[in-house]
């Protein structure tokens, strides 16, 4: 189903390595702007260190808020990488080739950004070492593995390191190509990183197996990560959080937002790097069809959570759902979330014309992620603002403070900066994978028509 384009290896090298070797002006501008936004986030974190969390809009029962929402959101985005590369590698989907690495890179930076949020969100970040690692043998102070907040770092650490290694393994052949194509210090750097890879038959065989094997190994991690994140909430007996369907619900939601984010990223890459020959409407078509399946599965779990949450007829549970849907300010957010998160994507992506229109795909996938961000907010925030009926806890207004907004913006800047820098130094589109597609493509003559085909091992 790939559009057939004849791409000579030389052209592929030039196109995909250009940005790594030459630095256009816009790169500096973008890097500086993003850096400034990130700096603002850094400053506000320092302010939080000095003045404490009084700067946030939290209250005595609204102890978690936007920062945790943002954490869950970025963990969700980070599921793009494995979703795309692992599943598409395992199913040998031909259109994966240009997409995989960008998705994996997005994974790594999104996950790293996400991981910072619970840490800066603690009351005393300087004591975080107590939390994440059993190091204080002298005083016998260890983390308590019974806490979901211990499962969480372990899962995120596993996922982060695994996907980083995954990227590197798949990057080695391209580093070798970059080594051969570059000169001076670049050549030294790439040569060192490429470990002397030369592309012998053995090396390629292992490279191919590695793609499949690592995908198969990372998939279970990928599922476990967001499940465990969801258990940060589901383990609590707080009404609205204590729902057993959270793990698959969170995972599929993560896939929804993640794959949408990949679509957005592909559109951006295509524009700024002029990759018209590599990222074609076919890819957005395929992504869109994948997303159609994902978004409807997501709807199923969303309905499960809601129907059976309300079906309990537990007054507190009902109160939470009433708050989520009918009360200020959620009565505004909920429709917005559902329209942007489900109706708009579903309504647009069912049409092939729309799926093949990159501009529309860019905007709709962006909108879908607005919806998914709000989804997390609506899951997390109301549940704690009205836990149990005490007069002391009439629903307090959670006034979002500017500093929280700055931190959220900074997280977006950080992820974009990370991806940009990676793309600056390394090929963000796997060269050897594209070349393989060129080698393996075949055609089968059926009557008059030549049906495009591909070699399968």
């Amino acid at each position, binding site marked *: 189903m790939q559009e057939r384009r004849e791409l000579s*290896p030389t052209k592929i090298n030039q196109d995909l390595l250009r940005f790594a070797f030459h630095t256009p002006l816009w790169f500096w501008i973008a890097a500086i702007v993003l850096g400034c936004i990130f700096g603002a986030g850094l400053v506000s974190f320092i302010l939080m260190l000095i003045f404490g969390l009084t700067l946030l809009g939290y209250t005595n029962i609204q102890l978690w808020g936007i920062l945790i929402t943002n954490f869950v959101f970025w963990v969700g985005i980070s599921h793009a990488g494995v979703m795309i590369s692992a599943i598409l590698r395992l199913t040998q989907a031909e259109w994966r080739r240009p997409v995989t690495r960008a998705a994996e890179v997005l994974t790594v930076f999104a996950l790293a950004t996400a991981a910072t949020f619970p840490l800066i969100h603690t009351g005393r970040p300087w004591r975080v070492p107590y939390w994440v690692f059993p190091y204080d043998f002298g005083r016998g102070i260890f983390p308590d*593995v019974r806490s979901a907040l211990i499962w969480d770092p372990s899962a995120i650490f*596993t996922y982060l390191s695994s996907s980083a290694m995954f990227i590197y393994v798949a990057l080695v052949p391209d580093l070798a190509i970059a080594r051969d194509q570059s000169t001076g210090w670049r050549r030294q750097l790439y040569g060192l990183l490429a470990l*002397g890879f030369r592309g012998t*038959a053995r090396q390629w065989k*292992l490279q191919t197996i590695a793609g499949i094997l690592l995908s198969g190994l990372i998939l279970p991690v990928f599922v476990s990560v967001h499940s465990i994140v969801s258990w940060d909430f589901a383990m609590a007996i707080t009404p609205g959080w204590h729902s057993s369907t959270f793990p698959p619900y969170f995972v599929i939601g993560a896939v929804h937002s993640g794959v949408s984010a990949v679509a957005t990223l592909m559109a951006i890459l295509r524009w700024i790097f002029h990759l018209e020959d590599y990222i074609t409407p076919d890819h957005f078509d395929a992504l869109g069809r994948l997303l159609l399946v994902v978004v409807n599965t997501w709807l199923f779990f969303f309905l499960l959570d809601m129907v059976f949450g309300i079906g309990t007829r537990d007054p507190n549970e009902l109160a939470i759902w009433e708050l989520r849907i009918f009360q200020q300010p959620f009565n505004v957010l909920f429709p917005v979330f559902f329209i942007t998160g489900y109706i708009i994507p579903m309504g647009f992506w069912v049409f092939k014309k729309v799926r093949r229109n990159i501009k529309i795909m860019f905007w709709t996938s962006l909108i879908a992620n607005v919806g998914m961000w709000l989804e997390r907010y609506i899951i997390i925030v109301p549940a704690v603002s009205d836990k149990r009926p005490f007069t002391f806890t009439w629903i307090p207004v959670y006034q979002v403070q500017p500093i929280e907004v700055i931190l959220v913006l900074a997280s977006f800047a950080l992820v974009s900066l990370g991806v940009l820098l990676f793309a600056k130094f390394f090929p963000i589109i796997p060269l050897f994978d594209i070349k393989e597609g060129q080698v393996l493509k075949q055609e089968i003559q059926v009557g008059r028509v030549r049906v495009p085909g591909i*070699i399968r091992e």
Partner: protein
Amino acid sequence: MATTAGGALLGLFQDPVKVADAIDSLREAGFDGSTLKTYTDTPYPEGAFGEDPENHRLYVFPFMGALCGFSVGLLITIGTQMAYPLVTGGKPILSIPPMINVMYEGTMLGAILFTVLGIIFESRLPNFSKAPYDPRISEGYIGLLVSRAEGKADVAERAMRAAGAVDIVTQPGSGR
């Protein structure tokens, strides 16, 4: 003509079929298959050039890794609970279900880490060899390296040129 210390020389081809022919004629000329290596910038289907089949033990690594990761996870989870026996939430001092979550992550981390190490090891990396090499390989040329060709260098060269090599490289590669 002068060959490198290893007596290795590299033929550059543009057409994969010609590489296959070259390998055939080199075999006839008495070169052992293990001394013939192809350099490509992208994977070709296995055995496309009629080269010797490669076998590896990569599948052992994930299992070893999973085992190590599992035992480490077991040690940490049991150790922390036993070394600091505090009751929380009326749960048993040794609570199995939470351990399973952590041990699972440990197992998977071990498996993946060992797999990556296995891939690097089995592809014989890092290997900054001085054998002849040519950057043009990254531009779609296919290199055929004949190692241990002392004395028979000219035979090999003739065979490869006959098969259609566009160039023969003999000066050692830069390593990197």
